[in-house]
Structure formats: C-alpha cells, structure tokens
C-alpha cells in the first residue's frame, strides 16, 4: 500500500507586540496624561531608575536607566512607580483579548514588553482576511487604552521578529516566500541573542538579519554549532515553531452588584452563599478544592474593601467557608455600605492526611481553622501564631509566624539550664518613677505605689543609630514592696529619647 505523504497543516500567526508595557499599563486609564512626558521607575528608594517611559518622555531626552535626580532635571515629567499588579491585570486583559480571536495563544512576553502570538489559521470565515483581523485586533487593543503592533506571517518567528521591530515594513501580512526579504533589514537584536552570540556577531560585523542569512551555513554551524543554523533559519524566516499554547486563564471569580447598598452583614452573607455555591461547583468540576477566598467589596463612595481568607487545608465545605468568611467580616467589618460583592477563589489540592489505624483521633483541620479564625477575630491576625526571635538587639524584636505543621522534634529549643523566668508585658505599662539621684526609688504600678528595696542596673542598650529607628534605653531590675507588704520583682525601662518609664516585665 502506498504511503500518503503527511501534509503539514496550514500555519498563520498574528503576533501582538506592546512596547513600554510598564508605562502603557499604568497610563491606559489616565487619558489626561496623554500629552505629558511620563516615566515609570523601578528599584528601591532613593535609587530608582527609569524602566519604561512614553513617547513624550523619549522626545524630552529621558532614557532608561536614569535616576530620580536625572529625571528631576526635566520639566513637567510625571513619575510613576512600577506596578507589577497593574501590568499583570493589563496582560490578562490582552491575553483575553487575543483569546477572542483564537483559542490557541502563546505568551512570549518579556520583562519590559508584552508579546503574544495567536494561531489564526482557519479563522478567515469568522474574522475575514488576515488584514481585516489585524485591523480589528488593533482596534480592540486600542479600546483597552493600549497601543501595539501586529504582524502576520505563516512563519511564527517572522511574525514575532517583525512585530518587535519598530522600523519594519508597513505591510502587516507577509506572504509565504517573502519572509527573508521582509526580515533582511531588521537588526539582530530582534532574535533575542545570547550575550555570547551577540558578541560573536558584533566581532564579525554582522548587524542585520540579512547579513546573518547570507553567511555560509555549514561554516556557520562549524563555528557556533546548531545554534548557528537555528539563528540563520530564523533570519531567513524558515525556522519552524512548536506552538505552546497557554491555557485560557482559569479565573474563579464571581461578582454581584447589589440592588441597593447593604449595611447588614447577615444579608450580605446570603449573596455570598449563592456565589460560593457557584464557585464550589466549578472547582469540583476540576477535581480541586478552594484554598483561599478573597472578598472584594465595592463600597458606597467607590472605595474597595478587600479581605482574603486562607484555609489550613483546601476544602469545598460551603458551611465552613461561610462560617470563616462571616467571622472574618465580623471582626473586620466594611466601613461603609456595600454596593458590589466579588469573590475570587483560589484552587488547591484536596489531599487528605492518612493516619494510622490506632493513632489517636485529631481534631478536624476545618475545626482548627475555625478556632484560629475566631482567635484572629478576637486578637488581630498578626497576634496569632508562634513567636520567632530575630537576630537583633532591638526591644520587641520578634515576629509572629503563622502556625505550621512541625517537620520533626526540634531539640535545639530545649534549654540546658534553669533560668529565672520573666513575663514580658505586652504592651509595656507606662509608669511614673521617683529617682534617688539616678536610681529608681519609688514607682507606681497598676495604681499601687511601690518602694524600691533593691535596684540592679542600669542595663543600657541602644541601637539603629544609623537611621530614624534609633533607640536608646536603660533598664533596672527592681525588688519593690507596696505599702500592703506585697512584693514585686519587675523590670522597668527608661526610654532615654522620650524620657518615659515603663514596666516591661515581671519576674517569677
């Protein structure tokens, strides 16, 4: 039986390129700044550098990498800080926009630009000719407040290179066989060369794709290996591409606009319950569970109020989620009436812990979550967890870390010696102290006067003199007696910068 030659499916790609993406993402909803030079700065203060800018900024002479002082030298420049969140939102929108033309989208974005390729083969009956699709796509992008370039080619990389090049041909669709001619004048950097290859080509005096394409192939491979072949075929518009489509974004979001502003939390929870139903249905369909829920409430007056609740273990128990959301909103009620409710859920795995048959029963994870949520509602979320010491002499230099399952028995924590225990008072209690020369003589604690019998100190400590957090204090360990003969062993501290006395610990 004769073998029938496999026919390659027809390929046609539209590539969308949005340059200065950081700036465009920030400016798209600010049309009033269209005529002003705007720059986006990244990095830590005071050493931020320009990472992106609009055309007006470029015309003024501002360049990437300039510092804040340099930018300050230009008149009327609007300076923004880079917002990765805004960029992410804008990127999602662009991908969704691309997704309306084809289910097959490949995201090739870099740090400073947005780039995606859309497989538009076979979409003519839906969107018309590639030119028509391109026009429509560009209008779509413009409607989002962004400006981009679109190039179409039967070769994926040709489309990418042409889109990335600002000085490309005015024609947006490249026919089969024309790729090399279109690519020839483009600079090599559209290929995204490695530093090593860029250096070699610079040494050879090869600056354009046409010059690269003209090199003898075998000799080129002998010099830079198979990368040479790849780059040359890229330069000729011949390099094939294995399309790696991105999944259409799986967004677990539900949003409900309320008919009138709600003040009552209970009423709100009715709507939340209905939305949770939908979310749980969707996650169950994907065999996952909800690990966290973010409640975004739009308030009367346009303000947004957000709470995020994460479960110790992902789960799809609606009653559980309602309970912990309710507890959280009870302890952090929105400041004004709610006009819109949005729930964003995050999926997680539904793994269960298999315990031994004879292991003692443990409380359910969900119940622990509820208990912790109750504690957090009571004490504040930064006050629930375990305490971890920091390498610092600063008073109160500890942090509260969320509880986590222990990985094993930690022997280092076992104290080798018996020590006097001190109970730290948090917060410390302000006191008034009477001094005998420089030593504490009398002080008041919890409305009782204590006469100091013995005072040990002062123990002096100071730190962070190199910044505004500078602190300087002395402490006294005192044994004191009240008029009713009750004895108090405590530590009192004198904040030398504020001249304030506090009882900071009680000794057992």
């Amino acid at each position, binding site marked *: 039986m004769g073998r029938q030659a496999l026919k390659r499916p027809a390929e046609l790609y539209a590539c969308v390129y949005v340059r200065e993406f950081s700036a465009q993402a920030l400016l798209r909803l600010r049309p009033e700044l269209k005529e002003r030079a705007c720059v986006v700065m990244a990095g830590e203060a005071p050493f931020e550098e320009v990472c992106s800018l609009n055309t007006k900024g470029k015309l003024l002479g501002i360049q990437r990498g300039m510092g804040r002082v340099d930018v300050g030298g230009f008149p009327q420049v609007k300076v923004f800080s880079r917002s990765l969140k805004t960029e992410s939102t804008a990127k999602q929108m662009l991908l969704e926009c691309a997704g309306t033309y084809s289910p097959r989208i490949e995201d090739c974005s870099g740090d400073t630009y947005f780039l995606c390729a859309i497989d538009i083969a076979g979409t003519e009956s839906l969107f018309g000719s590639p030119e028509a699709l391109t026009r429509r796509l560009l209008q779509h992008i413009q409607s989002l407040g962004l400006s981009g370039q679109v190039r179409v080619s039967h070769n994926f990389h040709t489309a990418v290179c042409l889109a990335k090049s600002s000085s490309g041909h005015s024609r947006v669709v490249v026919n089969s066989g024309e790729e090399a001619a279109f690519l020839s004048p483009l600079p090599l950097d559209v290929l995204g060369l490695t530093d090593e290859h860029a250096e070699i080509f610079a*040494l050879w005096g090869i600056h354009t794709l046409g010059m690269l394409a003209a090199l003898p192939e075998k000799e080129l491979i002998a010099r830079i290996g198979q990368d040479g072949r790849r780059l040359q075929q890229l330069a000729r518009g011949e390099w094939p591409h294995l399309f790696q489509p991105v999944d259409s974004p799986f967004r677990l979001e539900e949003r409900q606009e309320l008919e009138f502003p709600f003040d009552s939390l209970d009423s709100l929870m009715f709507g939340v319950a209905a939305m949770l139903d939908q979310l749980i249905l969707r996650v169950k369909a994907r065999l996952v569970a909800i690990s966290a829920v973010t409640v975004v409430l739009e308030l009367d007056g346009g303000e947004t109020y957000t709470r995020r609740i994460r479960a110790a273990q992902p789960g799809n128990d609606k009653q559980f989620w309602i309970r912990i959301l309710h507890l959280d909103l009870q302890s952090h009620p929105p400041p004004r009436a709610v006009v819109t409710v949005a729930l964003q859920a995050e999926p997680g795995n539904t793994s269960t812990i298999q315990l031994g048959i004879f292991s003692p029963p443990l409380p359910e994870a969900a119940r622990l979550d509820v208990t912790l949520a109750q504690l957090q509602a009571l004490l504040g979320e930064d006050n629930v967890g375990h305490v971890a010491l920091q390498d610092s002499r600063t008073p109160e230099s500890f942090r509260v870390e969320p509880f986590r399952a222990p990985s094993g028995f930690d022997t280092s924590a076992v104290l080798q010696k018996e020590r006097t225990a001190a109970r730290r008072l948090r917060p410390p209690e302000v006191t008034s102290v009477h001094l005998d020369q420089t030593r504490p003589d009398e002080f008041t604690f919890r409305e009782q006067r204590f006469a100091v019998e013995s005072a040990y100190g002062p123990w002096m*400590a100071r730190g962070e003199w190199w910044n505004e957090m500078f602190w300087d204090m002395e402490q006294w360990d005192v044994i004191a007696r009240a008029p009713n003969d009750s004895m108090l062993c405590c530590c009192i501290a004198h904040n030398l910068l504020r001249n304030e006395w506090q009882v900071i610990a009680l000794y057992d």
Partner: protein
Amino acid sequence: MTDRYVELHASSAFSFLEGASQPERLVERAFELEMQAMALLDRNGVYGSARFHKSAKLNGLHAHVGAEVSISGLGQRLTPPAWLPFRHRAEPVRIPLLCESRQGYQNLCQLITRFKMREHIKDDGAALLDDLEQHSTGLVCLTGGDEGPLASALCSGGEKAGRNTVERLVHIFGHNNVYVELQRHNEREEEWRNQAALRIAQTLQLPIVATNGVRYATAYDSEIFDLFTAIRNQIELDRAGRLLSMNNQRHIRPAQEMVDLFRDIRGAIGNTVELSDRLTFELTDLGYEFPRYPVPSNDSMDSFLRKRVIEGVGRRYGARNTSRFMEQITKQVESELALIERLGFAGYFLIVWDIVQFCKERNILIQGRGSAANSIVCYALGITAVDPIRMNLLFERFLSENRGEWPDIDLDLPSEEKREQAIQYVYLRYGELGAAMCANVITYRGRSAAREIGKSLGFDQASLQKLSGLVNNFEWRGPTDTMAHSFRDAGFDLTHPRIAKYLDLCMRIQDLPRHLGQHSGGVVICQNALDTVVPLERASMPGRTVVQWDKEDCADLGIIKVDLLGLGMMAVLEDCVELIPKHYGDDIDIANLPEDDDVYRTLQRADTVGMFQVESRAQMASLPRNSPKSFYDMVVQVAIIRPGPIVGKMMHPYMRRRQNKEEVTYPHPSLEPVLKRTLGVPLFQEQLLRMAMTVAGFTGAEAEELRRAVGMRRSMDRMNNLEDRLRAGMTANGIDSATQETIVQNIASFALYGFPESHAASFALLAYASAYCKVKYLAAFTCAILNNQPMGFYMPAVLVKDAQRHGLCVKPIDVHESEWVCTVEHEANRTLSVRLGMRYVKGLRKQTAEAIAISRRSHGIYQSIEDLTSRVTSLNRDELITLARIGALNELQGSYHRRDALWQVQRAGRSEGPLLSYSKELLSEASTSAPLIMMTTTKRMTEDYAGTGLTIGSHPMAYCREQLRRRGALSAKELWNASNGTYVRTAGCIIARQRPGTAMGYIFISMEDETGIANVIVTPDIYERHRSIVMRSKFIWVEGLLQSHEGVIHVKAMHLAALWDRGLDVRSHDFH
C-alpha cells in the same frame, strides 16, 4: 579608696576594625581626663603602640605596652547563647598581656612573631599554650573581657570551667602575674560573669583589676566601632544584629565614674594604679642595635670601612687629578670617616655597601639618592654616583654629630625582579627573623570610605560606583571639593537622614587604619633578633615579611631602615645599556655620559615626553625659559619645579635672572660664593646651611640643626634660640639689621620647602641619561620604556605616538614576530624600528605569549590559525579572539584581515572532540574564502585601544580633523602659529590632568592630537561649570585665549565641551 584610675585595657583602631580611635586620640582623651598612664592592647600586635608612645610622651603620659593575643586551646570567643539567632564566627579567645619589663616586651614580640610566622599566608593566626609557656616571663596577664578566656569558660562550662582556665593562666604566668579582670558596661550578662570572676579570684587568692575594655575614645565613637564590626563581618548594619555592641560604654571613662562603678568591689580601682606602677617598661627602652657587619678578625668595622673607602677613592679619582685636589679629597674622606667612627655608624655603611656590591656583581643598576650624595664615603663605596667634591656638596646635610639620628640612605633599583633580588638577598643575609619590610598602614580615604560605608548602609553597587568615580583625588582641595559635593553630584539627597549619616561617617573614618600593607622598599635590619624589637608577620606577597610599624614609627623609635626603592627609569636605563650596544653597536656608560648639544637642544624645546623628572607639564612649561645648557642646569631644573621653590616664590626670580630679565643680587656680598651658582636665589638646602655658616659662623652641624628646627617647627624655644644665635653671629660679622632680616626670612621660608642639592644631582643624572638615550637611541629607549610600564607621567599610547612623531617606526603585534616584550628590529633600509610585544595584549597570559614565541623559534612560523592552536595548546578562546581583534593574526595564511582571523578563530576555538580529533581533514572547510567584510579604519582603531590600550595607526583625532577644521579648530601644531591673546578653538584627547596643590585650584590638562601635545588651563570657575567634562571626558573641545609666552603656549579655557569618544578605551594619567 583612691580616685586615681589607670585604663589598662584599651584597643585602638590599630586593632584593625576592632577599635575605633587613633592611638593619639586615646592619649588625648586620657590626658583630658587627667589619667597618668594608659595601656594599649591591640589585637595580636603592637601596631599602634609606637604612635601611642610618641603621643603619650608629648602629653606626659606613661604609655604601657601590651597586646590582646589570640590563643588556641582556651576555647572560642564568647557568642550569644545557642537559642538566640546570631551570626558570630568562631574565633579563638584573646588574652590581654601587659609588658612589665623589657624582657616581657621581647617575649611578647617573639610570641606574636612565632604564631604569625607559623601561618603560610598573611593571617591573624593564634598562639598555642606551648608558645605562651615559653614566652611568659616579664608579662602580666589579665583574664580579659568578653573576648577573654574567662568569659568564654564561664559561659560554656560554668564557674568550675572558669576556675580551671584561670588556674591554667596562673600555671603559665605565675601567681603574681595574673589579675582577674572586671569590666562593667552596664550589661546583665557581664555582671553575672563578674560575680563568678570575683568568687574565683577569692578562691584562688588572685588580685582583681577593673578595666573598661576600651575600644574607642568617646561614647560617640561607638558608631564607628559598630560600623567597623559590620565591615569586618561583611554584613550590612541593618542585618548585623547581635554582632553589634549592646551599648556605647566602651569609651575611656573618667576616674570618678570608674570609682563609682566599682565602689562595691574593694581594690578593683586601686589595683589599676598599683599594676601601672609595676609596669616599668616603655618603648624608649627598646634595646635595638643595628647589626654588626661581619669583618675579618684582624679588622674592626671602622678599619674595614676605611680600607674599602680608600680603594673606592682610588677607583673613582685615579691618578688623573692634581695633588691639591687629592689633598682636598683626602681631607674630606678623613673628616667623614672620623665622624662615622665617632658616631659608630661604620656597620651601617658597610651593610649598605654590601647590598650595593651584591647588585653590582649581578649587573643590577643601583644608585643612592637623597642626601647620601653629599658624602664622599658614599661616592667612594659606589653607593652614590654624584661626585660631592666636584659638585661642591655639603656633607653636614647628610650626617652631623649633634643630630642623634641614623643616616638615611635610599637606594634606587630597577623595579620588579631586580629589586626583589636585592630584597631577598637582605633576607638571606640577615635571616628570616633578622630583616623585614617596614609596614605601610592602609587607611580609609575618600573612595574606600565611601565604598565600604555605603555597602554597610545597604546602598546599591551602581550608586557606590558612581560616587567612587566622583570622589575627588586631585591634590588641590578647593572649597567645593568636599565629600558633600561629591555626594550631591552622585545624585544623593543629603537631606535624607540615612544619606546624611553616610556622609557623616565617611568624614569621621578618614585616616583610620584599614589594614596593614608593606612599604614599597624600606627594609629594617637587626641581626637575627628583629623579632625581639617588634613583631614580624607575613606580607601578602610570598616570601616577604613585615614589621608591625611603618617607617615613621621605626624612625621615631630609632630603628634603622635601608630603603630599596624601585625606580622605573632605572629599569629603563638598565635595558638601554643592554639594547644600545646590541642594536647600535655603541658602548654606553650611564654614569659618564658626554654633555651633548643635541640633548640640551631637545630639552630646551621641552620635547621631553618619557624623560625622567622633566616630562611633566610644569617641567615642560619651564624648560624653554630655563634653557638648560649644562649638567648643573639640569640639577636646578629637577629641583625647581617642586612645591618648595614654587611656594617659597623662588621659581620665578630664578627664571627671570636666568633670562637676564632681572639683575643678579645677593642678600650680602659674603653670600656670593654660596649663591652664585643659583644666580643669587637660594634653591637648595645645602645653600641654606652654607648661608648660616658664612654669615653667622655656624658650624656645619649647627647649620643643619637650624635647618631641621625651622623645617620641623617642633620646638619654638629651640628655634628662637637658634635664631638669636644666627642674628648674633651676623651682627658679629658686621651685617646690618635690614640684611639680617632678609637672610632670616630667606632661611625661614625656604627651610620648609628646600630640596637637597645632592638629591637633585642624583636625579639630574638619571634625567640627563634618559634624555641622552631618547635623543640618541630612540628605538632602544622607546623599547625599554614600553617594557617597563607602568611608570612615568604618560600612558604607553602617548609614548608610542610621541616616538612616531619623532620618526620611529612602531610595528604592530604579530604572532609571527612579537615576543612577550617589545623588541628592536632592523629594517632593510638600515633603520631601526620597535615591534610591540605581546605584553600589551590585554588578557593574554605571559606564559601563553612565551609559548607562542618559543614554538615559533623552534618549529618555524605558524601556517594557519589551526596550526597556532594545535602548537600552543594553552591559548584559550578569549586570547585567540583578542589576538585576532588587534590584528596579531593577520599575517597567518588564509587570514587577510582581522575579520578573516575572527572568522577562523571562532572555528579553531571549538574542539572537534576526541572522536574526530585524528581526522581533522574530514572536517576541513572546502571554501577558504571568508564571508566577512573588513573592519573600517575607525573600527580597527577602536579594537586597538580595546585590545592593547594604544594604536600604531593614525591618532584618533586625525579621523575627525576635517570636521574639526570646519568648526574652526586648530591642531596642537597650528596653535604655535597663533599669536598671543587670540581666541582659539582646539580639540584633543586628554592624556593628563593635574590640579597641583600650589596652583590655587587651577587645573592643567594636557591633550594630544595627531600633531602633538597642547596644554589647557582651566580656571576654578570654569571647572565648577564643566566639572563632569573635565573629570570624565576622554576627548574635549576647548575654546579660549591663547597664551604664548617665552616659547610656552597654553590655551586658557573659556568654554569646554565633551567630544564623542567613539567608545575608545583611552586612558589619561591623572591626579599627579
């Protein structure tokens, strides 16, 4: 209870990042607090003790000597308990040791030397208990603070371990020599250790002593201490955590405060005074003796020296001189030898003579400089090359009876290996523990301070780099040359609190020691016992050891050093001595060169690029005016362009008289013989001495004393006394009061800045020799100077361009021809050319370059790039590429231009792998044609500068000459045709920037184009306006008024602009 207190445990900044105050500052503070004595115990050394001692003497304080010595075997230094997070490194404990007697001091030095020298590299190291046992006599041991063994033992093993540790110390040092130390810095943990220590002291019946474990003079300095802790641990202050000190209590506390602090502990304060009284040793009692030179048994050192000098006189003067002249010589020799014998310095002269002999036997050029050239003994011994009799030099300037100081002889040697040979000879001759280099204390300066503090405060690398580039290193410090200005220029906002702190810290740590380096050539000698005088330690350089004091410290304590200094020009002349006979067929004796008109004409034209001492811009500006015509003119020329004569306003009077524009007069007719040679203007220190001798009847020694008293301004009483004597002497000689005043003024102003005539004469010899070689043997001189870079005032690129302008053909680096060094080649037309050596290829290893040359000599020239890579297997890809980029592979087969070579190199740089390595022909390319286009001329120039730092092609400015001409720019040569006062435009490549301290903030820029060098003067206000252009630009456009005066032209800049630098890696030589 007494209210006297002596601080017995203080560390200075010489504990290198573990102390925050200079020793002088500690003394100053102790003096303010009326402390009668103090002990300095730096970490593992006595680095700061010399300065501490000197300052203490001046302030009437008793300076105890000691050290905190690291000991292995007594546990690790205290760290926070394991349950707390911390970043402390494990370090051995340190015990504080105090020297009670000279024997104790010697033991301490030997102890430190022993464990320091046990290390094979420069490292702190730690003593063993055995070492302690052997060197414990005469030392008093304290149990230490938190760095000590008792604190460590108490925390790791409780009171029992603490007692055991103290018992071990008692066993080593004896019961009377161990004090239990108590420190109170208002820290809880320290107090429980103190209570335990008290119980131990009571049990073992040991005395207790209070100290404050001082690390800084005042509480405010604790910030520097914290900063140093962060730097030492290479961590940012924000992350340093418990590494930083708990509080700022480790400062020098007043006696009353210490008494109050230790009121509850009987004897703790009183014992400090008692122990201080016990410590009788001071550094004045060092016991240093200069080594004796070994002489035959029938000779004393004096008689042996006499014989060598008489031999030398015969050799130097021979029989060609008159008996009257010989009589004068004999008289001077006798007088010098008698003085040397009286002072007991014969050994010193013989040791220097021995080093000179060693060098001469190995054909190493060596020449004494400085005031030694005043001595006929030095001349006869071959130490110096200037004849002091013919030059009429004054011996007393070198050595005088009253001075009480050792003579100072500096020996110049060719740099690098030859100098190292001489240094190693000294080590060999006097033993590993008999000789060592002087230390050189590396201190925090503008840039290093800004960089390290910036890192500690968490500033990013790019900003620090920018700041480092702006911190001014020019000599002049104008009102805007402040660090604050540099900070602002680098874009720092000084109102930001952290940045304000950054600036504050940068200024506060200026001049504090960072680490110890080695002096460039000062060798201290003490026959096999130098380690009893000062501890020795390894230097970073293999085979070198250093003492813990720098040369000023050594001099202050009367320790003799011999300076073996590297002088690039000596190496150049040495190479010339070899190259000239070989390529020109002429024999040359550097010490006896003929006076030559061509050479003087060249000097008069200031055509002096590359010549020793006369190549700087200032020298070039004065040469046409002074117009040297004889050797003595050169002596004056070398001496006159110095801060001394310029500040002393001697330069211009001399020049005017030289040009017959001013009458030659003398302050007094009797001074005519003294000042005649310098046209009535005192230029040299020797003249000052002679003036005092002539007008006031001073002896040579008295005159020298006067010079030193005025020069150092140490003691006003002494100076006034000498001035009175001077005036009295002049009155006795009938000199009127007005003239007396002139002479006194002359002496007073000049003594500060004068230059020794003998030193000028030694340098003038080298200057003339370099000029002679350059004028007569340009190829040899250029080859030699290129082979001894870096040296001198100009970069190699400038030297090459200058040689080319003088008609020398400089040929490119070529793997078929070049050696590692530059070589002289003979052309078919019988001219000589210079072939650049591969040492100029950036990134090419010497070993590889030599392998290229060796294989070429043994197996013939290379057929192709593949042939080259297969024969020189050590050549790596980067080296091959660099060789191809600079055109060194152009002559290989199949490689017609640099890109051809680069095309082939890329293939040659990839190995076929073992499978195909034997069948290369299978992989050979069918096509030999290269597909790459040739580099443009400017690209070739860029590659030349990038790969070699110079080009033998056209000067970069030549490529834009047409464009510049259209803009009205004149070339350096054309500037000579412009008249004085014309407004001119010019442009060039900056080759040197100078901002001399004597020029009131003016900046002098030397810039070069294809026709020569032009000079630009930048006034302070123009500099302020164009600071960045002046500091950073490589090529500049200058507009301004031409100043043409007596054969010297300058453009006084009124407008400056940066020119596009084409990415060229051209370098200027700045900040002289």
